């Protein structure tokens, strides 16, 4: 105590120095450094490059009957959206949309189930695990068009008809499964192995420990895998091109329309598919939020 008191006069004598220290600590009120403006410009350019093309399509799809494929905008109406669903000449939009959604749902279910099981399997090391892993990654590296072509040829050689629900399904899974498994690995790495051990200690069977502990804990991650599976399948083009058979999926339909449709209804289609994508993403994120909210509200009780 006495030592502290003895120090006091010294502190007072050093007071005149204090303002300098204060200034150094205070937040700078001056302009931002020049690097801020450089980086901000770069970011703005990036955002324009990313969203500009999409917004051109969305805006042009709202023209009226005089509308063309390029700017400037001619009037505004929902004409081309009506045209899209009524005119036969624009192709089988509704049918291909149906098929794409169905295919995406099937792909999603298979991807989630297989990824989850692979995640379970890869928790421990086993003989040939690296080999299996590289085989899986290999199908990500293979060019999609070549892989699709090969799948089509294989079906032909085996005497099977190519169709969206057989060959295209297989070709798309070669794309979504590796992605799903990789995401699952990341999700799995945050699962504490001791939870399973605790469940076993408390008398849970293997199945009970998966159903009551693993799946609920991993649920948000499983939704993320599902979202991946759905979006990757829904806009898959390269692998489906040679494998979809006689009936087109939506991306294939859009592609063929670009070859023979010369009206803004093409753009209207782009707008509609984007909206569907956003609904799916929104629903997935909503599910995750809901899952967490449900826990929270139960917790508040």
């Amino acid at each position, binding site marked *: 105590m006495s030592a502290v008191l003895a120090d006091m006069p010294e502190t007072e004598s050093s007071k005149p120095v204090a303002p300098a220290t204060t200034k150094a600590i205070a937040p700078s009120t001056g302009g931002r450094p020049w690097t801020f403006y450089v980086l901000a410009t770069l970011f703005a350019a990036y955002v324009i490059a990313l969203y500009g093309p999409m917004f051109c399509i969305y805006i042009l799809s709202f023209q009226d009957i005089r509308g063309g494929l390029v700017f400037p905008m001619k009037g505004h109406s929902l004409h081309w959206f009506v045209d899209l669903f009524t005119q036969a000449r624009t192709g089988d939009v509704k049918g291909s949309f149906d098929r794409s959604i169905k295919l995406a749902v099937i792909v999603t279910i298979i991807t989630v189930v297989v990824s989850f099981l692979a995640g379970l399997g890869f928790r421990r090391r086993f003989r040939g695990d690296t080999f299996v892993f590289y085989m899986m990654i290999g199908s990500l590296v293979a060019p999609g068009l070549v892989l699709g072509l090969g799948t089509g040829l294989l079906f032909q050689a085996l005497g099977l008809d190519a169709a969206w629900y057989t060959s295209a399904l297989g070709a798309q899974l070669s794309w979504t499964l590796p992605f799903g498994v990789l995401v699952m690995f990341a999700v799995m790495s945050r699962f*504490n192995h*001791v939870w399973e051990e*605790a*469940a076993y*200690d408390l008398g849970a069977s293997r199945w009970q420990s998966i159903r009551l502990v693993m799946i609920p*804990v991993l649920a948000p991650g499983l939704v993320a895998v599902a979202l991946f599976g759905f979006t990757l399948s829904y806009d898959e083009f390269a692998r489906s091109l040679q494998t979809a058979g006689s009936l087109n999926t939506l991306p294939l339909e859009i592609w063929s329309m670009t070859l023979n449709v010369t009206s803004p209804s093409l753009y209207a289609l782009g707008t509609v598919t984007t909206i569907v994508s956003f609904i799916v993403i929104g629903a997935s994120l909503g599910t995750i939020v809901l899952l967490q909210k449900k826990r929270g509200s139960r917790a508040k*009780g």
Partner: protein
Amino acid sequence: MKKDRGDIELAGVCKSFDGVTNVVDGVNLRIADGAYCCFIGPSGCGKTTILRMIAGHEDPTAGEIVIGGQNVVGLAPVQRRTAMMFQSYALFPHLTVRENIAFALRVRGQSKADRLRAADAMIEKVRLTQFADRLPAQLSGGQQQRVALARAAITEPRVLLLDEPLSALDEQLRVQMRQELRRMQQELGITFIHVTHTQIEAIALADLVVVMEQGKIKQAGPARDVYAHPHDRYVAEFMGGQNVLSGRVEKVNGASFVLAQAAPSGIEVPLQARSTVSVGDRVDIAVRRDDVALVRPGRDLPPGCTTSLPSRVLAIEYQGYFVKVMLDTVPDDEFVAYVPEKTFFADPFTVGDVVMATWATGSALPLA
């Protein structure tokens, strides 16, 4: 429910993970029903592996584990009627406190109403009623520990296994939860097996302290036995509170022998039942730090003291009710005297002083 016996017998238990080295190497031990047993040792000494083998999370490579007269090797934890409390508690993050505690009853197929009623009774026992609807992440470390304890105890196990249960808590809480563990053990009246690497924790809690090193039991016995009468240098140093000295036997006379030292007097050590020594043997002895008295050179030794070793004070630490004085009495080993605060400050030493370290002859303990 009729309470089953929870006495445990380990007979020749070995465990090897790689087929070459034994992590647990021929352990024999008997733990009485309703005992509080602490396994203590440095990390990697095999204590946790023994715990996991008793729990049924590992199978022994050799040997038998008998609980209540029944060999349980190969049985699942539920069949053994054991329950484990994990080091980080392993509470299910998506379930509330009540649901966590009711989990074991849920997987046994008990109806929702029944199991929640049982869980609520247990929640009351561990004084968590106001937190019953919270998630584990919303609880403090001490509260989480109580949930883990309640979750393990709800199935009325005959043995509760605790893997370093206090290591995740801060110092103050650790002392508090230590008492709580003891209280719960007495309330439940079952066998507790507790693994720790803190000797204070072990001697504060246990009826039976088991000191381990490299897969083997070095000494097992009541806390006071292990602390005051260590078998060998390892146990003496691990449990602490002892100065360990070694030297060559100079002469043996009847009930005591004398250890040669640089000091003029040598060290006289009573020959206790368990050691037979002959002249020329190299022997370790232990002297409790609180039995060592420090006397200024030239003054009379306290009565009963025949040994006095000249030493220089290396460092002094004030510890409250005693003062820790570190000395250079023996060349290679640490030598410390715990001097009662009042004694020390009646005639305080300073670093560098030369003192005579002395103790009553009867308090020197020959080690194996």
